[in-house]
C-alpha cells in the first residue's frame, strides 16, 4: 500500500518557479498496475523520482506500508530503494562498461546475494525480458536502445521489489516486444502482488492497466480505464 499525501516538488529556474508536482495525493493498493500519462514536461518523471526516494519533495509525504519516507534517514532510504523499489529509468541508466548480466546483478550484489545465485537470477530475468542469451555478456554500450531498455527492466526486477516504477518502459520497443513487456509487468502484479506504476505515452499500455492517472499542470487526476469510470482521487 502506497499513500501519496499532498506531494509538492518545485524547481527554481532563474527567477521563475516551476511546479511539476503541485499538491498530488493518491493511494495505490498492493498489486495494482497503474499508469501515468501526461504531456512531455508535465512532471511524470519528477513524480516517479519522489515515489522512488531518488529525490526529496518540497512538501508532502509518501507513506509506504505505513512508513513515511520523509521520516527516514538517508541510509534507510537507500535500503528502501534497494529492497522495495525497482526503477526503470527513461534513459535506462545502465553502467555502460559492464555487461548486461553484470548490470542486472548489481542490485543483487548490493542486497548481499551470493554470486552464483545472482548470476542464475540475472540470466533468468534477461530471458524473461527476451534478451537473446548471446547478448547477456555483451557490454551495455554495444546493445541497441531496445535491448538496453529490456536490460533496464530486468535490473528493476532483480531484487523482487514491492513497487516497480517504470518510466516509459516500452518507449524503445517494437509492438510485439512492447506487448510482451506489458504482459510481463501485469503478470508480476497479478501473480507476485507487485505494485507497478508505469509512465507511458502508449494508449494501448495505458488501457491495459488497472488504473490510469493524468498529470497536468502539477495536478494528478484519475481517468477511467476500459470504459470503467473511476472517481478521481486527486
Amino acid at each position, binding site marked *: 500500500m502506497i499513500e501519496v499525501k499532498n506531494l509538492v516538488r518545485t524547481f527554481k529556474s532563474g527567477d521563475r518557479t516551476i511546479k511539476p508536482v503541485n499538491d498530488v495525493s493518491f493511494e495505490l493498493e498492493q498489486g495494482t498496475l497503474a499508469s501515468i500519462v501526461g504531456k512531455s514536461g508535465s512532471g511524470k*518523471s519528477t513524480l516517479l523520482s519522489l515515489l522512488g*526516494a*531518488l*529525490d526529496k519533495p518540497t512538501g508532502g509525504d509518501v507513506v509506504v506500508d505505513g512508513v513515511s519516507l520523509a521520516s527516514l534517514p538517508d541510509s534507510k532510504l537507500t535500503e528502501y530503494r534497494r*529492497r522495495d523499489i525497482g526503477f526503470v*529509468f527513461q534513459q535506462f541508466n545502465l553502467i555502460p562498461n559492464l555487461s548486461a548480466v553484470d548490470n542486472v546483478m548489481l542490485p543483487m550484489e548490493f542486497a548481499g546475494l551470493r554470486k552464483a545465485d545472482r548470476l542464475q537470477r540475472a540470466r533468468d530475468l534477461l530471458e524473461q525480458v527476451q534478451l537473446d542469451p548471446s547478448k547477456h555478456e555483451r557490454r551495455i554500450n554495444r546493445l541497441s536502445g531496445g535491448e538496453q531498455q529490456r536490460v533496464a527492466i530486468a535490473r528493476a526486477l532483480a531484487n523482487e521489489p514491492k513497487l516497480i516504477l517504470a518510466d516509459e518502459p516500452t518507449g524503445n520497443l517494437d509492438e510485439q516486444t512492447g506487448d510482451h513487456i506489458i504482459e510481463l509487468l501485469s503478470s508480476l502484479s497479478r501473480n507476485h502482488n507487485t505494485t507497478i506504476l508505469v509512465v507511458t505515452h502508449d494508449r494501448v499500455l495505458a488501457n491495459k492497466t488497472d488504473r490510469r492517472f493524468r498529470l497536468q499542470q502539477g495536478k494528478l487526476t484519475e481517468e477511467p480505464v476500459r470504459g470503467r469510470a473511476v472517481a478521481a482521487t486527486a
Partner: protein
Amino acid sequence: MSVLARSVGNAFRNKVRTAAVVAVLAVAIGLALAMLVANQAVGAKVQELNASVGTVLTVNPAGGQGFEGGGEPLTAGQAATAAAVPNVSAVVGTSTLRLRNAAAAAAQTAQAGQTGQPGPGGQTGQAGPGGQAAPTLTTSLTAAVDAGTLGNRNQQANGTTGSTGTTQQPVRSLPITATGIGAEVDNTGKALNITQGSGLGDYSAASTGALLGTTLAEKNNLTIGSTFTINDQTYTVSGLFDAGTAFGNNAVYVTLPTAQTLAGTPGELSSMIVTVNSMDNVAATKAALQSALGTDKADVTQGQNLQTAVSSLDSVKNISFIAFIAALGTAGLIILLIMVMLVRERRREIGVLKAIGAPNRTIGLQFVLEALVLAALGSAVGAAIASFASGGIASALISSNTTTTTTTGRGFPGGAGGGGGFPGGQGGPFGGASQLLSSVTASASPGVIAGGIAAVFGVAIIGALVPALLTARIRPIEVLRGE
C-alpha cells in the same frame, strides 16, 4: 562481479588516460622509492660511522703537529681536570716515543743532511693534530712494516734512492711507535686485543713488561718472555696484541710511567684519551672538555673527518627523506586530483548506483580500490624506475653534498704521535670522507621497497578518501540529470 572487479575494470576504462596517469604516478613513486632507498643506505652508513667514531675524544697539546710536535705538553693535573668534566667516564694518559733501530739510526746519522725524516703520517703533508714532538729512542727491534715502498718514497722525496730488500740501505728502517698507556687501550682509545700472553697489569706503575704488535714480534722473532731493549734497557714481552692494521701492529705499548721515564718527561702526557659515558653526550662533553682545558692549552678532537662525513651524510639523509616525503605527497596529490576528476566525470553513474540501492560505503570503497589499482600499477613501474635510478640518485646526492667536505678532509688524527698509526690520507682505513661516502651502497633492498610501497598505498588511500567521501554527497537524483 565484485566491487574489486568493478574497480579494476573502471581503472582501465579509459586506457590512454590510465597509461598517462600510471606514467606520472610511476615517476613520483619511483622518485619516492629511490629517495627512501638512498635515505636507508645513508642512514645505515651514518650508524656505522657513529659506532666507529665511538665515544672517545682525544686531547692533544694545543698547537701540536704530529711527530714534529709543538705546544706545551699535557700534565697529570690536566688529566684530573678532564676527569672532572661531567659525563667523562675515563681519562687515559699516553706518552709516545719514537723508536729507531739502533743500528739503522747509527747509519742514518752518518748520512749527511738527513734530519727529521717525516713519519709516515706526514706523507700526505696533512698530518693529524698530534702530540708534542715525540722523543726518538733507540731499540733493538726492527720495524715490521715493509719499508720497501714507504721507505723508497721517503727517500726519493729526499733525493736519495733506496732499493728494497738490501741491507746496504740502513735508512729503510722505519720508526716504531712506543706508547706509554695509562690503561689497556690503544692510542685511539680502543681496548687492546691481546692475542697472546697477558697485559701489563698496573699501567700506572713503571715496569719492564711490554706489549708488542703481532707482526712486530714476528719480525723480530720474539715470543712471550723474550726480551728486547729500548735505550739499552731491557724489556720483556708480556703479551702480543693485534690492532688489525699493519701500522697498528708495528707498535709497542709500555706502562705510562715507563714511557715517561724513558722520555725523561715524568708527569707529562703526549695525549689523553677521554671516554664519554654515552654517544649522545659526546658533542656536549667535547665542548665542555675544551673549555675546561682551555683552547690555548689543549686540542680536543673526535675522529674529525668522520664527524664531517657523518654530518654531511646526515644532511644527505635529511634531504633524501624530505624528497621522499615530497615525492610521496606528490603521488598522493596526483591520485587525489585524478580521483576528484573521475568522481566528477562519473557523477551520473554514481547517481545510478545510489538509485539502485548501493550504500555509500560500497561506492566509496569502489573508488578507493580504483585508486589503489592505479597506485599498484604506478608502484610496479615506479619500483622498476627506482631500482635503476636509486644508485645514481644516491651517489649524485652524496657527491653534491660532500665535495666541500672531502677537499677539506684531513688525515685521521692518529691519536698520540700524529700519523704514527696510519699512513696519512692516502687510503688508510679512515683516509678521507670521499672514501667513506663511496662505500655507501644504495642497493634497493626488497624490505625498503616494500615499506616504501606500503607508504605509497597509505598515501593513495588518503588521496582517494577525499573523492570517495565526495561520492557520498552525490544524490541519487543525479541519475535524472542529463549528461
